């Protein structure tokens, strides 16, 4: 079992598995420019949000915190921040600068039109990529990484193959001193008592139950039966009947170790071990929160097939469904369906996954990266005004 990988050391001491130049658009206005520069400058990635204007209070703070967290992310070597004006761009840049990495700022109104901003931004991005490419990978402890576990497009195989294999990976990773983040508490519903019982302190145990209750109360407030929304129609086609059933399979991906901490959306863990982050169960929103919190890698189990990936953090697609492994072959990084079809032990599948994740941490590309399956969506807590 390999316990070291080749990664990048950042000025703030954190370690990265990628060396990207982020083109961070603070609000809707500069998204098109960020995407345009990303399409012409290799080595960059656009970080955009369709919102950002006239957000208020907690909702606004969360958007800024999440975007700044992505700017600070250790897989990012440097950042070009763009916004409608220098005022909002500088505010974001100031939130990213404590990470010690190069941050350059451009305002649309101060630069000229969007073509002017594209040209100027592309030249700056090119220089940033040249500088980033001078950084070298070095040997680092694999367990210094924070790895998030996700699932999507779940079916009945998720709970018996994909998620348990990832759960064994998670246990080994925690035993080595690493940090695993399990998110999406709505999908603990019906299984939250099992997680709460594993909390290292009472406060976190209570918090796990509260997180789930908040989502359950939302369904009640809207007067709906959550079934049909969660489990989704494709979950149900795949043999999952209720959210309780889906949850019992979903929590398996976090393994079996004690819960050492509960954190909110886009927060970074302060402890090592199994950590729970409060995120909505839509994978894109959840992964965006995980990026904001600095997870360097996301392991993503799917049953029926869900192709979504995150930008910045390589998203490793794992399936235990042999039909999906064939039908969506270009999207699957690790096929553990032999657990079902050939009697492979979950331990053996978890060991294969470990080897693959070490390789990916060291630079091997994921299917999501190659196919640019990289969606981003910061959650909203209130309407814009």
């Amino acid at each position: 079992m390999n316990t070291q990988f080749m990664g990048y050391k950042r000025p703030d001491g954190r370690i990265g598995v990628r060396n990207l130049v982020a083109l961070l658009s603070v609000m809707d206005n500069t998204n098109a420019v960020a995407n345009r520069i990303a399409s012409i400058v290799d080595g960059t990635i656009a970080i955009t949000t369709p919102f950002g204007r006239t957000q208020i209070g907690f909702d606004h703070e969360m958007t800024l915190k999440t975007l700044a967290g992505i700017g600070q992310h250790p897989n990012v070597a440097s950042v070009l921040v763009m916004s409608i004006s220098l005022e909002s761009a500088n505010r974001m840049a100031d939130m990213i600068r404590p990470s010690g990495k190069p941050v350059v700022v451009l305002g649309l109104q101060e630069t000229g039109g969007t073509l002017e901003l594209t040209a100027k931004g592309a030249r700056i991005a090119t220089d940033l990529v040249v500088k980033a490419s001078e950084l070298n990978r070095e040997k680092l402890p694999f367990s210094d990484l924070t790895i998030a576990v996700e699932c999507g497009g779940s079916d009945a195989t998720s709970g018996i193959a994909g998620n348990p294999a990832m759960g064994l990976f998670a246990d080994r990773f925690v035993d080595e001193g690493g940090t695993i983040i399990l998110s999406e508490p709505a999908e603990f519903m019906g299984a939250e008592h099992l997680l709460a019982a594993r909390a290292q302190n009472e406060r976190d145990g209570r918090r796990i139950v509260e997180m789930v209750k908040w989502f359950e109360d939302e369904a009640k407030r809207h007067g709906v039966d959550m079934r049909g929304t969660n489990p989704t129609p494709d979950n149900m086609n795949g043999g999952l009947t209720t959210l309780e059933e889906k949850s019992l399979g979903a929590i398996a991906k976090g393994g079996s170790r004690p819960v050492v901490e509960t954190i909110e959306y886009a927060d970074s863990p302060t402890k090592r071990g199994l950590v729970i982050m409060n995120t909505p169960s839509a994978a894109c929103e959840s992964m965006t929160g995980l990026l904001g919190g600095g997870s360097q890698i996301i392991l993503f189990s799917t049953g029926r097939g869900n192709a979504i990936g995150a930008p910045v953090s390589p998203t490793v697609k794992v399936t235990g469904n042999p039909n999906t492994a064939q039908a969506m072959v270009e999207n699957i990084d690790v096929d553990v369906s032999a657990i079902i079809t050939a009697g492979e032990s979950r331990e053996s599948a978890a060991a294969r996954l470990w080897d693959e994740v070490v390789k990916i941490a060291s630079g091997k590309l994921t299917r999501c990266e190659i196919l640019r399956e990289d969606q981003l969506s910061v959650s909203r807590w209130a309407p814009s005004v």
Partner: protein
Amino acid sequence: MENVMVINEKDNVGISLSNRAAGEKIAAKVGGSMAEITLADDIPYAHKFALKDINRGEKIVKYGEIIGLASQAIKVGQWVHVHNVESIRARGDKK
């Protein structure tokens, strides 16, 4: 290979790991000992069937945990899914 899975001894449903037709006989572990079950419905891949007769309102158990309630009586070998099981949780439709 039987391709049937029962996760926990407490479970009253099993999982079919292939598409099966009504009338097929399968062997499954029920409460820890092997039993022969004749499937009463077609069971799609990875879907559930009843390991025993289940009364209306009785708990459906998988992973040794409650996953819902039977919304109608279910006979051994029948397909167990959304048509005969309801969620207990997040029922905003039930005031």
